[in-house]
């Protein structure tokens, strides 16, 4: 099965009943597969919107009816979605956005892989906010993590992103499709509770449109009733800080990762397609003293995982961008962080990573 198809199937397994999208390489197969599958599922809707701005808007509207909703896109489309992504954050709308990354800036390399949107996903919309982003490194993970994305979206009432890339999206691998996947729906809004009053975990209960709760949803700074209150500094600060902390405070709990060889001196930190080369180098070539940390969730950034390597002399970060997450890692550690950046669409070769270990050893 192809990665993009696995992602679509993962969504359907999780009960996704609304897909709004606009075709763009290399994500198109996700939409095409949904277009083929959804009309045969009772109550499900596939709609090809007029652009990505509309797609993002439509999935938010659908989410408020209680539907599990999703879109899929790539670089230029992702940029167009940014304003409404901020709206989803501010209105605490659970939804899933699949981004099959390609080379940028601009239309760049439509058919080549990249990891160039890793900072845009977190900082691309305006204002301060936090989101959850997952990064699959295999077709199986495309399925599993897409299904998981819906649970995280519902639990934290936030947009959740599947940050795959062209290689993973178009790769074909055998996968195991479970009979059913775990489904966690949002907490329901308690009788008499205000629609934007947070529970102990910082997340308000959810009531779908049509259930009689008369919820005014606005992207403006609002109080717990949902009423605009745009000029009160304290109101704005407490709302925005809550939106961030409901996710950041749970980052240990949200984290999803693999650690190999905690005793390593040279530790690769990786996500997405480069994980495959790292695994080759560490597990198959058995280069001495190396280990790795694979992040299946990149945002919120699980910085405490970096302290799981007591003997580390350097972190080596292979990315298909010019060092986006490497900089994030650098913020949290006191040992050298060595980015192994590669853009243009090709994956890292094992030799390049072995060389990086050698250079790291020489540097120290």
């Amino acid at each position: 099965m192809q990665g993009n198809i696995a992602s679509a199937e993962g969504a359907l397994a999780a009960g996704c009943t609304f897909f709004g999208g606009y075709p763009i390489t290399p994500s198109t197969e996700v939409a095409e597969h949904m277009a083929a599958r959804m009309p045969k599922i009772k109550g499900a809707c596939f709609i090809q919107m007029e652009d990505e701005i509309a797609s993002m808007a439509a999935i938010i509207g659908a989410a408020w009816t209680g539907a599990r909703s999703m879109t899929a896109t790539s670089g230029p489309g992702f940029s167009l979605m940014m304003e409404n992504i901020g709206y989803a954050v501010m209105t605490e709308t659970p939804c899933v956005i699949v981004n099959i990354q390609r080379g940028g800036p601009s239309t760049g390399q439509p058919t080549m892989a990249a990891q160039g949107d890793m900072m845009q996903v977190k900082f691309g919309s305006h204002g301060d906010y936090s989101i959850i982003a997952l990064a699959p490194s295999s077709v199986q993970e495309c399925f599993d993590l897409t299904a998981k994305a819906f649970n995280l979206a519902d639990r934290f009432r936030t947009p959740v992103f599947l940050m795959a890339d062209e290689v993973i999206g178009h790769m074909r691998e055998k996968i195991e499709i479970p009979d059913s996947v775990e489904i966690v729906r949002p907490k329901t809004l308690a009788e008499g509770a205000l629609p934007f009053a947070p529970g102990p975990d910082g997340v308000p209960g959810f009531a779908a449109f049509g259930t009689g709760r008369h919820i005014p949803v606005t992207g403006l700074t609002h109080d717990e009733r949902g009423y605009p209150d745009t000029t009160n500094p304290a109101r704005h600060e407490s709302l925005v800080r809550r939106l961030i902390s409901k996710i950041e405070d749970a980052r240990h709990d949200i984290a999803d990762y693999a650690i190999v060889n905690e005793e390593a001196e040279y530790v690769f930190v990786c996500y997405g397609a480069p994980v495959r080369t790292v695994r080759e180098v560490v597990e198959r070539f058995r280069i001495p003293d190396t280990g790795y940390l694979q992040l299946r969730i990149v945002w919120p950034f699980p910085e405490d995982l970096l302290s799981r390597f007591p003997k580390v002399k350097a972190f080596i970060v292979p990315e298909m961008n010019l060092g986006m997450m490497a900089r994030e890692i650098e913020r949290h550690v006191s040992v050298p962080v060595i980015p192994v950046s590669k853009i243009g669409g090709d994956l890292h070769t094992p030799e390049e990573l072995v060389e990086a270990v050698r250079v790291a050893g020489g540097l120290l």
Partner: protein
Amino acid sequence: MRDDWFREDRLPHIYCAGCGNGTIMNCVLEAVERTGWDQKKTIFVSGIGCSSRAPGYILTDSLHTTHGRAIAFATGVKMANPSLHVVVFTGDGDLAAIGGNHFIHACRRNIDITVVCMNNHIYGMTGGQGSPTTPIGKTSTTTPYGADEAPFDLAELAIAAGANYVARWTSFHVKQLTESVLTGLNTPGFSLIEVRCQCPTSYGRRNKYREPVDYMTYLKSHAVLKEKWERTAAPGAELPADSFLVGEFVRRQRPVMGVPDEA
């Protein structure tokens, strides 16, 4: 204002004294009430602008979204749950400038929503810039020497793009407007009701309609009833300068989207 549909605790509202938006809201709520729809199942959606603040004052579930995108959000609501009734409030800038693409595509899809455009010919909320419906020669903060781009005719645009129901009234035509909204609500498919209305603060002040009633008088005297015009005008005659047609322009039954199965 209809008490049971109104959020009393949101008062005072943001509208300027003499603004046409209040009248239009009232007409729409009157029409919605007459459909007999369940308040629980009626959803109001809007973008950004003075006009788009309307849903915030109504006691239902509502979505106050991003500038220009109301119809795209409404499409998601309606397609995900066709049993909900979806009404969109929008301004001329919201609908025809930034949201123009969503507007024509929703007409093409003929999705079952009703869009009420409060057309004050200007950007009210941002303080009086030109919009795609500012008439030629009229002044705004971005057309200080008079607009020199031809305006859109929103109703014609909706008809050409495929909407099932299209009508135009003014904030003066309270009864006709209410009837038209009611027809729009009851017509499956996309309905556009364009309402030309006064904005004394941003449009009136710059265009010699300083008092709300001045613009109302203009609307009343320059609105030409479509039926009457068709009955009385010489074939091929042009409308008098500055005049515009009001009435029901289209009521038809093209294929629609978003209508519940059992209907």
